[in-house]
């Protein structure tokens, strides 16, 4: 590995904190390093649903936050979780990606119990939750590059450049996170989920902090995701995004969870009941 960022470029400063890096970008090497390896593909040909939740009960400290939910999600489809604030949508998503132990029921991803410690699971499942943490010294481009290279993407810099353009971050490619607005940081997180290979995309209210143009672009991107056979599981409060992307929705509620059509769910959101 070599570090190509030995020069210190002229930079804008904000109270002593550099906001942009104008030196050479750093390179993350693979070859020559011990431990570089190719990921096994143990899931090819699996015909089970990408996600299957059966009577899934989620909560904290044994106390459920919502009624049990049940759904399946197949390749090339999108499912939305809807419900009012605090209804448990994010908690369900956390259980699906293994960040929360279910309080009851079953949740399977690719036909197996969720175990994010499994490398193959991490390779296939991309998620954007409410995280808002960044390495202060890595530029926007390098955050994406790190993610892409960490997932074994070849030609990573080209893929990163394409996504920077798509998410309107090209001008900020060399910016450090401190220089980004809230919406730009959100775009960075979304781009990071898309810069890497995936079979399942889990998004928690991806529309948050995005302007209308970017929401439309995101919706288009998620449609592309489905067309290419990827599955999308998202929690959302945006009726337009839901109508455009989701095939079905699950209304997560305290008393009883229900499956709705996308249109019905969008109407409920617009009517303020979800």
């Amino acid at each position: 590995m070599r570090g190509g960022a030995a020069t210190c470029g002229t930079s804008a400063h904000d109270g002593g904190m550099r906001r942009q890096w104008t030196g050479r970008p750093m390179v993350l090497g693979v070859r020559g390093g011990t431990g570089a390896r190719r990921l096994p593909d143990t899931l090819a040909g699996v015909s089970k649903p990408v996600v299957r939740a059966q009577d899934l009960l989620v909560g904290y400290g044994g106390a459920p936050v919502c009624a049990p939910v049940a759904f399946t999600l197949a390749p090339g489809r999108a499912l939305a979780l809807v419900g009012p604030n605090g209804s448990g949508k994010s908690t369900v998503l956390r259980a699906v990606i293994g960040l929360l132990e279910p309080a009851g029921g079953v949740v399977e991803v690719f036909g197996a119990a969720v175990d994010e410690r499994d490398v193959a699971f991490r390779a296939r499942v991309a998620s954007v939750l409410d995280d808002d943490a960044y390495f202060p010294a890595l530029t926007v481009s390098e955050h994406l590059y790190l993610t892409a290279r960490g997932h074994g993407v070849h030609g990573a810099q080209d893929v990163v450049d394409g996504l920077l353009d798509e998410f309107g971050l090209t001008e900020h490619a060399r910016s450090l996170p401190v220089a980004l607005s809230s919406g730009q940081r959100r775009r960075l997180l979304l781009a990071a989920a898309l810069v890497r290979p995936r079979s399942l995309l889990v998004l928690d209210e991806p529309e948050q902090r995005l302007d209308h143009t970017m929401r439309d672009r995101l919706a288009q991107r998620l449609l592309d995701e489905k067309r290419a056979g990827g599955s999308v599981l998202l929690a959302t409060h945006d009726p337009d995004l839901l109508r455009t992307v989701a095939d079905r929705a699950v209304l997560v509620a305290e008393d009883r969870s229900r499956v709705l059509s996308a249109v019905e769910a969008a109407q409920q959101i617009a009517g303020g009941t979800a």
Partner: protein
Amino acid sequence: MSRDGGPGRADPRGTDRSGTAGPDAPDVDAAGADAAGSDVEGAAAESTAPDDGPGPADGPDPGDEPVVRPFEVGEVPPARAIRRYTAQAGSTRVGAGLGALLGDLYYAVISVAIGVLIALGVAQSLRVALPPAPPGALEGPSLAAIVVAILVGLAGALVSLAGRLGPIGAGGAEATWWLGLPVDRRGLLRPASRRLPALGALAGAVLVGLLDAGLLGASGERVVRVVLAAALVAAALVLLAGLGQAAGAPRRRLALLGDLVLVAAPVLAIVLTVAGWQVAALPAPSWPLVLVLAVVVVALAAALDRRLGAIPARTLRESGSVASQAVGAVVSLDSRELGRALTDAAMPSARRRTARLRTARGAASALVTADLVVLRRSARHLVQLVVSALVPALACAVPQLDSPVGVLLALVGGGYVAMSATGEGARRAEMAPVLDRLLPLDARRVRRLRMVVPAAAMVLWSLVAFGALGWWASDVPGFLVLGVVSAPVWAGAAVRASYRPAPDWGGPLVSTPAGALPSGVLAVLRRGPDVVVLGLLPVWICVLLRTVSPTLLVVQLACTLLAVLVCSSIRTGSFMDRALAAQEETGTKAGAR
């Protein structure tokens, strides 16, 4: 299929995306029930029917078997390369080069060395000041026996701290950007897994070294062996906590285990005293024993390293978050935030039973009841209260410590720890003042009400601590009355410390033996302890004189009333600050005229 993972601009869609089924994937949809709008309970049907609900028209075509397509990914880099990539950016761009690193190291070593030398000097002075052990059979436990109890307590505190901090975690950016990578997680976590054992070893070496060289007066090679053994034992304890974490033990359980050991320490000392167990001197570990300990530590480290990959991300995230909060609190000298971080780390996220709050019959009683519930539910603070109550009692029982100065130091130290434990309700209220504002109570009254639970707790504490003092001074009733009368001072100080403003880092620097300190920070940190020092002056005099006179009792009563008044104040500035502000205001008015 491309290995490029996510599609770039040139390839926004299509089969070369590293995905699953291609565009001809079947129309298998998410369906918790067999029809839209139906109840999902117990009806998770895996529908293979075409999309019968309104949905986007451009989904995959129905018909094919829904299979996950092959997933081809290029070589992933080793975890070490990921770590180095991130670290290199940091060191290159935030001026953390070799020079800066050596500079930081220099300052850290010098600071630690100065701190250790000061503490060593104090301990040796204490040792010199302590009366020699009386010849023949001792009436109480020896100093060595007390040191044994202290060692047990330190071990408990270390385990408790390790449990609350993880001990292995990945917070912030590491959790977001590293833990999702399909690389060997062990390699990512290796530095984190070594950090806390190393810190534990350092703390163990310093503290036990101080006890051995200072209090017990040991010197030479013995101290080296003791220090090494202590460092290794401390590291082993943290590593064991790490193995517990890897095995799935909840942090709360590890913290509770440590707390129980901590409580056991003074209890052990009392049991030993009652049983008449005497230790003339503590044996020093031999070199072979030190070697065996080193081998054990290496074996534990290797075992933990093998299990790092078994620690779930949720645990790593939680631990990393707590550690970040604790480190931030330490760096900013914010003991309240540190307490919150460590307390919350071991709190259950839900309670089995809901407190009925029967005693809440109005705004005032609701506030007091809430404080009581907060204290009752915090095991750490209850442990603190119990342990700290036994400290003066032990000082009174040890022949070499039962001088007025020794007992006074034990009383001050134990009282301060106990006082800090009782202020949790006020600290929580300071952090989220909105609840106080919802109550129809003025701020001064809120402060006074916040003293009720601390005062009650400190009365109970005083019954033990001052009861022991009374036994030591052969005046149990007098000291008990003194303890009860002085309890509100501790309570007031606890509330005053809880409501202190955030440290002001903008003030001028004050030179201290440990380096420069901002005076604004010191001004804030002294709020609370100042009341203890001044408001309990009659108590200190009584202890030093070993007697309670009616005059001093009356003076203490007056001091208590004054302390309660001072601690009820909602002004945050010091008297000098207020005087200066008044002077400026007067000057401004005069100028205007």
